[in-house]
């Protein structure tokens, strides 16, 4: 295991930031710590880095117990949320910093350092900015410089705190792709923190979902999406419709083709793309009306209103490809029939 965390707990006053967390991350993975704000993900990252001390538990990096090692001896690369570039140094000096502060006997010669720094700057495609100051760079450029600076010390693990949090949406998209490719080339075990599930799914090879200081689920993005371990994960990852059997939805779900008899739980989560819509033929009973729709690029998101005998009006969301929706020739206010293909059941 490249990074191991054993029974870590951390309290801030009465607030429990981390509650007995254990986590193993194999060599070469790109892991996302995903969770809503205040779930403890940044605290966990900072404890792994050594920027914060856990109340209980141990941290292992490459098999070595580093719990009591200060951050400077942990051989980690840390990319801060707002980059924390040294404002008074040029881009070159920023990246060279980690190499220049080494003890004299370990320090490389200035020529070797310069060579290495330029190679890193070329890796992040910003060598042409080497004599600029951080204030003269765009957000995306600062992000890449911060990454180059962290990589300069050849860290055994790379830790990134909300690496795309402070960027424009378009820059963010590019950088996500870029980070994944970079990780593929360097293959250094990396953890990044994010509250954006889309980002986690797109970039990470493993996702760890945290909530209230506990790990809710850990797994590959596809696994987590297809087999959410609990209601929180199901709601947090992707869109979902929630049907509670206590609110008289059972009959209705049965007419929509979802058997409720042998299920273990009382709450059904249905992904929008697991709902099929058909135009209502004359004579059949239906309680569902098409209210509105939005274009999400290749998909259409359809807002349906379920009303009538089975309880109060409620919105249901469905998704389908553009052309399929066009072929249905639906208008606002049309009665439609639903068919639910799949649901996750929770207590």
């Amino acid at each position, binding site marked *: 295991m490249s990074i191991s965390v054993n029974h870590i707990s951390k309290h801030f006053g009465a607030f429990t930031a981390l509650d007995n967390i254990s986590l193993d991350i194999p060599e070469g993975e790109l892991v996302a710590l995903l969770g809503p704000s205040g779930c403890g993900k940044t605290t966990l990252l900072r404890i792994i880095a050594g920027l914060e001390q856990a109340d209980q538990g141990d941290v292992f990096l490459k098999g070595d117990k580093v719990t009591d090692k200060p951050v400077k001896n942990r051989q980690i690369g840390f990319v801060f949320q707002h980059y924390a570039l040294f*404002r008074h*140094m040029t881009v070159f000096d920023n990246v060279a910093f980690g190499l220049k*502060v080494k003890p004299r006997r370990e320090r490389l010669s200035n020529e070797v350092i310069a060579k290495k720094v330029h190679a890193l700057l070329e890796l992040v495609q910003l060598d042409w900015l080497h004599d600029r100051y951080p204030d003269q760079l765009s957000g995306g450029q600062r992000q890449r410089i911060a990454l180059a600076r962290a990589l300069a010390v050849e860290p055994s693990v790379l830790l990134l705190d909300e690496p795309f949090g402070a960027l424009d949406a378009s820059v963010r998209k590019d950088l996500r792709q870029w980070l994944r490719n970079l990780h593929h080339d360097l293959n250094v075990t990396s953890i990044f923190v994010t509250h954006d599930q889309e980002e986690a799914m797109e970039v990470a090879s493993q996702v760890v979902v945290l909530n209230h200081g506990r790990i809710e689920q850990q797994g590959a993005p596809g696994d987590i999406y297809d087999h959410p371990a609990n209601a929180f994960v199901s709601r947090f990852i992707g869109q979902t419709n929630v049907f509670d059997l206590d609110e008289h939805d059972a009959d209705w779900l049965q007419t929509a083709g979802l058997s409720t008899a042998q299920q273990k739980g009382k709450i059904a989560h249905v992904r929008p793309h697991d709902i099929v819509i058909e135009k209502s033929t004359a004579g059949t009973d239906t309680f569902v009306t098409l209210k509105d729709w939005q274009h999400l690029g290749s998909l259409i998101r359809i807002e349906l209103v379920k009303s009538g005998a089975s309880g109060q009006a409620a919105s249901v969301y469905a998704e389908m490809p553009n052309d399929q929706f066009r072929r249905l020739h639906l208008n606002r206010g049309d009665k439609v029939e639903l068919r639910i293909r799949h649901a996750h059941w929770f207590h």
Partner: protein
Amino acid sequence: MRPWVNGFSVNPIFYSVYLQKITDMAQSNIMPGFRPAISFTLVYLALIVLIPLSAMLLKTFELSFDEYWAILTNARVQASFRISFGAALIAAFVAGVFGFIIAWSLVRYNFPGKRLFDALIDLPFALPTAVAGIVLATIYEPRGWIGKIVMDTLDVQIAYKPLGIVFALIFIGLPFVVRTIEPVLQEFDTAMEEAAASLGATRWQAFVKVILPNILPATITGVALAFARGVGEYGSVIFIAGNMPYISEIVPLLIITKLEQYDYAGATAIGLTMLILSFLLLLLINGLQWWVRRRSGQL
């Protein structure tokens, strides 16, 4: 009507162009109140700063250049200039070091009585300078509380010596340094320190290579303010200085002495020279600050 500004006649064409320019700016500016604000600024500048300084300049012109030069090259005058500027410079640097440490403690650490201590920093601003001078002289004189200890152990006399002047000026200059460094230190992004540590820097390296360069421009400003204040300081110095001609006599005291002897031209000649020297030194410090900021990418 011929417009007069600061006692000098101004070319009417230039003046009308200037007025037109101000009017244009007023119309193109979104911020309201430009005209009253700029009028107030100019009137204030003229009444409080430019007219008194011009009057001093004009009074000095009563002297011929040879007379002016004779006053300046007088040995006693020269000694007092050396003492005033030298003591102010040393005091400003000492206040710079201590002020930095005090500001650091106030921002970075929590300790009981911190707020009280914080309030005490401003005391030299508020205290009548003569009171400060008398207190300092009483404590640091050879038979005073601290003066006696220093005298007995180190055989150094503080009060009634140039060293006393330095002590008084450190006291006066300290709040300038603390109050200029404090807000900058508060705004300093501590993530930069964490970044330095994550890259393997020791705490000392992080301090020297990351914190200090970011705080240096503010420290220079604080030292410059302490220096500027120290050069002109009168009240707190004269009680502790001993005021021995050639040894511990400061320039402001010499000006008072000249005034008491009804030598107004002589007094203004020294005053003007002091003004020019102070102005040049402040320019130099501003240049230094510009250079530091530029070198550290803050411009």
